[in-house]
């Protein structure tokens, strides 16, 4: 038998001759009178909008509302004397993020490619130049440097110890408890009541906790709905269908009012905890359906092949079916995480001062009357940054798990 490898064919693919900019524009934008008209109209509308927005942002807008309340936006009514704890938390997260980036990119030829350097430069320029971040820009710049340094270190470490990935995951897990400690205090730090948790810190904390809780729950519900045991199947299905039939706001109110009813008198779980539980219970029902779609997309032959090798059901599930199902479901799962992140804005309705809630209470201050556009634009950018980061992350994971090239 002879094996033909791609190397046996030495001919390179034909070189694609690039079009010049004018030829490209002619081919893609002005191929006939209708396309030309469309191009002119669309470009006109967009540039008009962009010009209006820029001129408003640079002349009419009064951005002072943001730097004046920067602490509130980020941390709510968290005591300002304890801000170093929040900075320490940010440093931990930046360090871990950089480290993970370096470890994941250990096989890439250059970690700091031109695109990455330009990106980092833009972030620094934005921090220095953009007025809203001015009060903290001196401390934000070292954070960017920390990410870069940790990335370089992570790359070196990743090359030396290939098994370091597990430890980085463990560090992320532990960082959650470090965050809880740094925000809430106790164990030697001044305690901060959850009434004073707020702003972006509260948004991120509830989102991360909600995601961490809803994922295993959703997974179990998805498996339960496909279980061979009728009672498990019925209960899972009933849960999923019931929760999906109730709006999140209703569930949040029920969480505030009803969860205490089920618990012994005197043990009133914290407001934030109740909100996180309601968020997680809600998202788990949707997540379960995403995971179930992934499970159904795994061919039956995979199960049969695993069984015919003598693997038992849990091993088959854990090693063969779930890895493939979750990989298929990644886009839907991350979409659900993004929804959950945005759903945290509803917590302001039950009286928690998360980012949007803080924005609203600042707008209620007579000193900043009518600064809606500035505040909401600022908030939109913050939400967008985190959602886009998640979506980018999911794309990277998908690329990494693709085994069909």
């Amino acid at each position, binding site marked *: *038998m002879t*094996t033909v490898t791609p190397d046996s064919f030495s001919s390179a693919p034909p070189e694609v001759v690039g079009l010049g900019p004018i030829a490209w524009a002619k081919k893609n934008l002005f191929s006939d009178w209708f396309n030309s008209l469309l191009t002119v109209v669309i470009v006109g509308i967009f540039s008009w909008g962009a010009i209006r927005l820029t001129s408003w942002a640079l002349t009419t807008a009064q951005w002072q509302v943001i730097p004046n309340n920067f602490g509130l936006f980020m941390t709510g009514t968290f005591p300002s004397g304890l801000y170093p704890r929040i900075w320490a938390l940010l440093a931990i997260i930046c360090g871990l993020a950089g480290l993970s980036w370096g470890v994941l990119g250990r096989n890439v030829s250059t970690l700091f490619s031109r695109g990455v350097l330009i990106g980092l430069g833009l972030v620094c320029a934005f921090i220095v130049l953009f007025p809203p971040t001015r009060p903290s820009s001196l401390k934000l710049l070292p954070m960017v440097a920390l990410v870069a340094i940790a990335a370089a270190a992570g790359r070196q470490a990743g090359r030396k110890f290939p098994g370091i990935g597990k430890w980085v995951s463990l560090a992320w897990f532990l960082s959650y408890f470090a965050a809880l400690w740094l925000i809430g205090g106790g164990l030697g730090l001044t305690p901060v009541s959850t009434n004073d948790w707020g702003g972006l810190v509260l948004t991120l904390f509830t989102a991360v906790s909600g995601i961490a809780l809803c994922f295993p729950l959703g997974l179990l519900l998805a498996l339960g709905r496909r279980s061979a045991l009728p009672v498990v199947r019925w209960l899972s299905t009933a849960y999923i269908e019931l929760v999906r039939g109730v709006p999140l706001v209703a569930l949040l109110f029920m969480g505030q009012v009803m969860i205490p009813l089920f618990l012994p008198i005197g043990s009133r779980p914290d407001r934030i905890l109740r909100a996180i539980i309601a968020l997680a219970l809600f998202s788990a029902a949707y997540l379960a359906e995403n995971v179930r779609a992934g499970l159904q997309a795994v*061919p039956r*032959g*995979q199960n*049969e*092949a*695993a*069984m*015919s*090798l*003598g*693997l*038992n059901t849990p*091993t088959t599930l854990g*090693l*063969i079916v779930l*890895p*493939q199902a979750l*990989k298929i479901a990644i886009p839907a799962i991350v979409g659900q995480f993004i929804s959950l992140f945005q759903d945290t804005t509803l917590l302001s309705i039950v009286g928690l001062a998360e980012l949007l809630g803080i924005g609203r209470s600042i707008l209620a201050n007579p000193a900043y009357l009518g600064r809606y556009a500035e505040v909401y634009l600022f908030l939109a950018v913050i939400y967008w940054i985190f959602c886009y980061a998640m979506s980018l992350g999911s794309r990277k994971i998908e690329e990494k*798990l693709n*085994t*069909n*090239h």
Partner: protein
Amino acid sequence: MTQFQTEQSSAHQMGTEPVIVARDVEKWYDNGFHVLKGVSMTVYKGEVLVVMGPSGSGKSTFIRTFNALEPYQKGTIEVDGTTISHDLKDIEAIRREVGMVFQQFNLFPHLTVLQNVTLAPIWVRRWPKSKAQEVAMQLLERVGILEQAHKFPGQLSGGQQQRVAIARSLAMQPKVMLFDEPTSALDPEMVREVLDVMRGLADSGMTMVCVTHEVGFAREVADRVVLMDGGYLVEENTPQEFFSNPREERTQKFLSQIL
């Protein structure tokens, strides 16, 4: 192609010790279709048994009852002395001793070729990783895939994938191998490389049950050929008699259609 392929074909050291004994097996699908209507068959140690028949005859379903991938409602099947029952322990014990190769390969796409082959020895036989890998590399060399050990199945051709699937089953050191139309999903030019591996396996004394439409393979390698049709076992014969002088009219008709 590989070092274990010899000139000799057919006439294996066929013993009289039965490995699989199926008695009056009957099966209905969930929709009530009567797919197996009392099939009895014995597979002896070291023999190569080829099962032929038109599509829908129940031949695939029948061999899939041997490792309990398909439940059956009446009759008994004994594999290596253990009767297939509803006891999960028994079923898992039987599956450890029965290898199976599927029409669609069913390799695990998220694992490398080597991981595909070592998975069951590590998790079912509890071998240490180093031993499992050593055995796996030997098997991959035997089926001619050694250079591809660290690739993913999606990067291999159909013929290569099917050879990996054979190596994966062999890694469990089964007492009998079941082949469920192993070449039906392959491009014509890849059929041979898979049949060559199966031929070599037969020559090494492996007990094999093959559902296949490959007449050449049946003629040269099989010790016995059976024909199934409509849920019945129609004819059981030596390959020479089966192809040149079949007893049953149904067999003659079937052969006239495929030859």
